């Protein structure tokens, strides 16, 4: 059984206007018909420019947002339409680590209070004493000291705070963790430590990760499978090396060309770079959303959004070039 299967997931945010009576004048289609699968112990990477909907995918999967339509099948059970009360047992299987550790920890709670919340709430431990024992273990697991239990978040550095956020996420022993740009707010040296920690924990917990990031080398390092998103849709999805070594979609090529190459002698692949801006998700271009910025556009690209073409069992691309 797959850990997670996302089918045709859509999340539209209504745009309201009006003074007394608010009318819905448009929708921001943040996530539009996204499908993918995650297995236990594997990492699924999600990349794209800011505003492409990758964070919304993550937050919708852990049901911080109610999906507009589609299925979120977690270990065989569709949780897309469960009510908050019905979701409670699934909360221990799904957790999230946010981007900014400065705002993701409650400034008025000590480490002990913060970490005992999920433990006591889900009945993993019964008493405070038990909770404190588990918390001491958790802190060691993420590379902090047990005596940090009485400190407040502001007494920690950014990297330590992210370790705390990770400790909170793994406290319920989740099967799936959404990592929403977990390192982009940190220094490079600290990033490496956090990435190593995440990889070690993945082995320990045998958890599936959804790794959301715009840092391409990092995604390549972390992920087993990678999907590229553009304006709410997945434009290309492939196993890691396949995607990075043989990108097909012009947008994927452009993204890879834009990433800096850490070798001064190598030239960047400038011919694939693109200009222009990401169009507004309220008023998306006709046909393929990428066609205004695409060098290879054909007449059909302006009319119809391309279906997904499967090149083999694992490499999918939504582009008419591969018809």
């Amino acid at each position, binding site marked *: 059984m797959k850990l997670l299967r996302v089918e045709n997931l859509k999340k539209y945010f209504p745009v309201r206007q009006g003074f007394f009576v608010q009318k819905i004048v448009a929708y921001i289609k943040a996530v539009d018909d996204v499908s993918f699968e995650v297995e236990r112990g594997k990492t699924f990477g999600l990349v794209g420019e800011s505003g492409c909907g990758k964070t919304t995918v993550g*937050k919708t999967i*852990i049901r*911080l947002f109610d999906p507009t339509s589609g299925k979120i099948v977690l270990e065989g059970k569709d949780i897309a339409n469960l009510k*908050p009360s019905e*979701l*409670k047992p699934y*909360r221990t299987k*799904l*957790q*999230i680590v*946010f*981007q*900014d550790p400065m*705002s*993701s*920890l*409650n*400034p*008025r709670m*000590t480490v002990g209070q913060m970490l005992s*919340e*999920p433990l006591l*709430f*889900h009945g993993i431990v019964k008493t405070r004493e038990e909770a404190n024992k588990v918390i001491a273990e958790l802190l060691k697991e993420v590379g902090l000291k047990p005596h940090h239990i*009485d*400190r*407040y978040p502001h007494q920690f550095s950014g990297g330590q705070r992210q370790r705390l*956020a990770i400790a*909170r996420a793994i406290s*319920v022993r989740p099967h799936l963790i959404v990592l929403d740009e977990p390192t982009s707010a940190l220094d490079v040296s600290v990033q490496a430590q956090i990435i190593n920690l995440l990889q070690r924990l993945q082995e320990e917990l045998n958890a599936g990760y959804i790794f959301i990031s715009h840092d391409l080398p990092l995604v390549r390092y972390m992920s087993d499978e990678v999907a590229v998103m553009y304006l709410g849709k997945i434009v290309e999805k492939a196993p890691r090396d396949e995607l990075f070594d043989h990108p097909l979609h012009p947008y994927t090529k452009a993204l890879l060309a834009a990433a800096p190459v850490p070798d001064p002698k190598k030239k960047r692949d400038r011919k694939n770079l693109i200009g222009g801006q990401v169009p507004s998700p309220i008023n998306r271009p006709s046909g393929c959303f990428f066609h205004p910025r695409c060098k290879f556009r054909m007449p059909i690209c302006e009319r119809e959004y391309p279906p997904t073409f499967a090149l083999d069992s694992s490499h999918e691309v939504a582009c008419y070039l591969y018809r």
Partner: protein
Amino acid sequence: MKSRLDSVRKIYGRLKKNRLAVVGLWIIIILVITAVFAPLIAPYDPNEQDLLSSLEGPSLAHPMGVDFFGRDVFSRVIWGARVSLTISLVAVAISAVVGTILGSLAGFYGSVLDEVIMRIMDVFLAIPSILLAIAIVAVLGPRTSNLILAVSVSTIPEFSRIARSAVLVEKNKEYIEAARAIGESRLSILFRYALPNSMVPIIVQASLRMATAILSVSGLGFLGLGVQPPTPEWGTDLSLARTYLEIAPHAGIFPGIAIFLSVIGFNFLGDGLNEALNPKLKDR
């Protein structure tokens, strides 16, 4: 616990930098001590009449003189602190609690509940608070409980607006989303996560509102709608002294000074707290 004490010390350290705030703090400390120990400090019973010395000016025996009914003004001002402070404190506490709950519910749940609560608050805000208080006391009768009700009702909208905006800011922070990911209920998230992080502007507002409440209580007293004689109350005493202001100004001046000082004390402290609790404000 230790860290909480530390943060109190830190806030006091920042408060100390603002001279006026320290002055305000001391005025309030003296006021509170006076109110608590009124029976020990006051040289006379505030209602004891010595009609022979009626309207006598300040002297060693009566440092603030004597009023028309032969009562010692000094003792009455001291006892008046008790009445003014208690009524204002209870009124502000009630309106802070009720206003904060209403405002934070409106801000946190949004949509219809927000509209309903805030539009009702707007209606109250449209009426000048002193007028609203007068109307309430006039309808219900000048009893202490009604006075508290009048003053608190007229300040509820201010608290609800401030609490609403503070909760709106906190609501979208990631630690709230993390709590939701754990599965905690919305009410629990509001009261255990969002509200404790929204307290700063509410505390500042409470201090500033104490000043207006004292003013409202004495204002109502002055109009005869507040605390009823012979209970010593600054506004009521001031109103009584008004008749003899030309021949015995001391009977009115001293209660007036008491009102002025306490109002200014709470205002200074409120402004100082605002700066001390929001260190970012000063950098601007």
